[in-house]
């Protein structure tokens, strides 16, 4: 928990655009997970309760498609923003060969240092290093999160579209591709749900430095203490380049913290609950049905 200390210096990490993008990711992802998991786990009692709560299977299907549209929306907005950023800072030459842009500290593209950091992190876990690696703007696990969503939206989105518009799809494609789309959609969704609700939640919120929640993605700013502990290389780089002041920001207002924590905890709680239910199902336990009562 971060004290809202007026004395502390705050720096901007995310702008309103990134905040809006992530909020729409959170809402649509939870919506898709809730409405999708009831089908994948249809035989559990909680899926039936949830289906009823959502207004029935047809209504849940409607919500699922709505959140899918939100997902396609943020995906394309993000792609457009990438394109615009590329155009704004255009320099001579093909962008892939602009080393700084592609492999610089602000790029999401993995670089050699990320692999080094990964092994340094493992080394820290097992006691081979006294400290964790010093991350720049994006740690390797944050980059993995980013690409997981990118890949996930592309794969789940395209297979979902195939199933949604199966009438048009089967004008040209054979029907067994719908089977393939169903497998991919369902398994990739399980991967996404498991990854976000277990790995991303821990790496971002439940790690000791952030526990129980990191609201920087919602308030956009973080304290100097957090900055130096989570992104020390970036902090030192900005300091060295004399650009640290550009990033200075006012502390988040109390209402923003309150709102961020409310929203964040709701999302964390929902995700964790779903993860627990999935785990219990894997263990053959239905928490709402006493095992001795059978089906």
């Amino acid at each position, binding site marked *: 928990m971060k004290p809202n200390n007026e004395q502390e210096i705050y720096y901007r990490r995310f702008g309103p655009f990134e905040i809006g993008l992530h909020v729409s990711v959170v809402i649509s992802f939870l919506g898709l997970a809730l409405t999708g998991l*009831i*089908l*994948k786990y*249809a*035989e559990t009692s909680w*899926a*039936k309760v949830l*289906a009823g709560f959502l207004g*029935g*299977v*047809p209504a849940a299907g409607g919500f699922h498609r709505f959140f899918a549209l939100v997902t396609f929306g943020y995906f394309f907005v993000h792609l457009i923003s990438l394109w615009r950023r590329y155009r704004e800072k255009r320099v001579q030459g093909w962008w892939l060969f602009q080393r700084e842009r592609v*492999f*610089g500290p602000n790029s999401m593209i993995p*670089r050699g*240092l990320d692999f*080094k950091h990964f092994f340094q*992190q*493992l080394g820290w*876990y097992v*006691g081979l*290093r*006294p*400290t964790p*690696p*010093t991350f*720049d703007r994006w740690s390797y*696990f944050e980059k*993995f999160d980013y690409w*997981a969503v990118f890949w996930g939206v592309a794969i789940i989105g395209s297979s979902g579209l195939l*199933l949604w518009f*199966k*009438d048009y799809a*089967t*004008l*040209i*494609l*054979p*029907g*067994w591709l719908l*089977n*393939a789309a*169903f*497998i*991919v959609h369902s*398994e*990739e969704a*399980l*991967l996404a749900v*498991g*990854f976000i609700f*277990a*790995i991303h939640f*821990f*790496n971002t919120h439940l*790690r*000791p430095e952030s526990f129980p929640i990191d609201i920087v993605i919602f308030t956009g700013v973080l304290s100097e203490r957090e900055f130096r502990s989570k992104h*020390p*290389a970036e902090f*030192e780089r900005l300091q*060295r380049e004399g650009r640290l002041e550009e990033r200075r920001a006012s502390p988040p207002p109390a209402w923003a913290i309150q709102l961020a924590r409310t929203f964040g905890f709701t999302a964390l709680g929902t995700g964790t609950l779903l993860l627990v239910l999935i785990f219990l199902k894997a263990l053959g336990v239905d928490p709402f049905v006493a095992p001795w009562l059978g089906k």
Partner: protein
Amino acid sequence: MAVVGFLIAWLAPAAQNPQEAESCRLCHRDLTLEPLQSSVHKSLSCTICHVGAKQIPHEQPTDPQICATCHPKTQAYWESVHGRGLLQGIPDVPNCAACHGGHDIRPTSDPNSRVFPFNLPQTCGGCHGNEKLAVAHQIPVPEAYQQYLESVHGQGLLRSGLLVAATCADCHGAHDTLPNSDPRSRLYPSRIPETCGRCHLGVLNEYQASVHGKLPLEQGPVCTNCHQTHAIQPPREKAFQLASVLACADCHPEAFDTYRESYHGQVTTLGYAGVATCADCHGNHQILPPEDPESTLSAANIVSTCQACHSYANANFVAFLPHVRPSDSQTAPPALYGIWLFMTALLFGVFSVFGTHTLLWAVRGYVVPAVAPLLKLLPRRGKRKAAPKTSTEEENHEAQ
């Protein structure tokens, strides 16, 4: 006419031998003869039925054998589950009067008769809907009456007033009621199609031509396997459609499992009809194997079968595999098995690497700091040769 009517009304009770009735009443003081006024037996004297009453003290109570002196066609009763129970001296077993009434007995064609179709379920339900009697005598279906009332037959009879709707006796027989374990019973499993077919003849004909109807009757499903016995629901009822899937599952567990894994199966598992159940694709009474040209799933018919819901269905669409287990390399098409294998490997890979990563982080971040000071194991910051600052500079240099 009026005079004749009056005379009959006046004479008829007299035929009951009023002197005899009055002498019975000397002891049986609470005996009222009113029910007898409308009884089909009103012209009989007491001792025709109460034969033992001629001697005092009376030798024996009225016995079904005495009814049989006038009603010889009811001999089947002694073979029935009720008659045999009576012979064994089991209490509560119905004799003739228990169903037909005693003093108030009426012809079975009289709408007020206890065994007239509208009244029969209640008469049988007196025992076959009575919890205490069900426990006492191990009646096999304790709530038969309640289930029947809700059933398509019970509703047809009692709500719609249809005399053609089946009542208890139409299926179970009346005097000859036998347990369904008895091969002579109309409800012995292999005789069920014939029994239901007495009313549902068209369905019986379809069934007999189907893959199920051609099986030896001991093996194949009969009407009640899908439709239940007492709790028969209208086939358009969602609850019936959902339950029918489970009925198919009894014999087709593999197809059931793959159905449950499909979208159709997931939706019906959640209790929502409106998507295809077994019968929507395979048909119901006339069900035939897909190889049969007449089958709903034959090459000639499958597109129109799918079109019942998916109006745009074409030859591509019907190549969808509704029953497939992608994890089974033996039965699944190689492409689907390959996709499943890839997805499984992807999930396993990601969760192994990042699961371990997160678990180790939790240990390093929470457990070690809590435990290490006690054990003095934790390497202390800055005391090692490679201080973090150095590495930061080094990395940044690398990054640029």
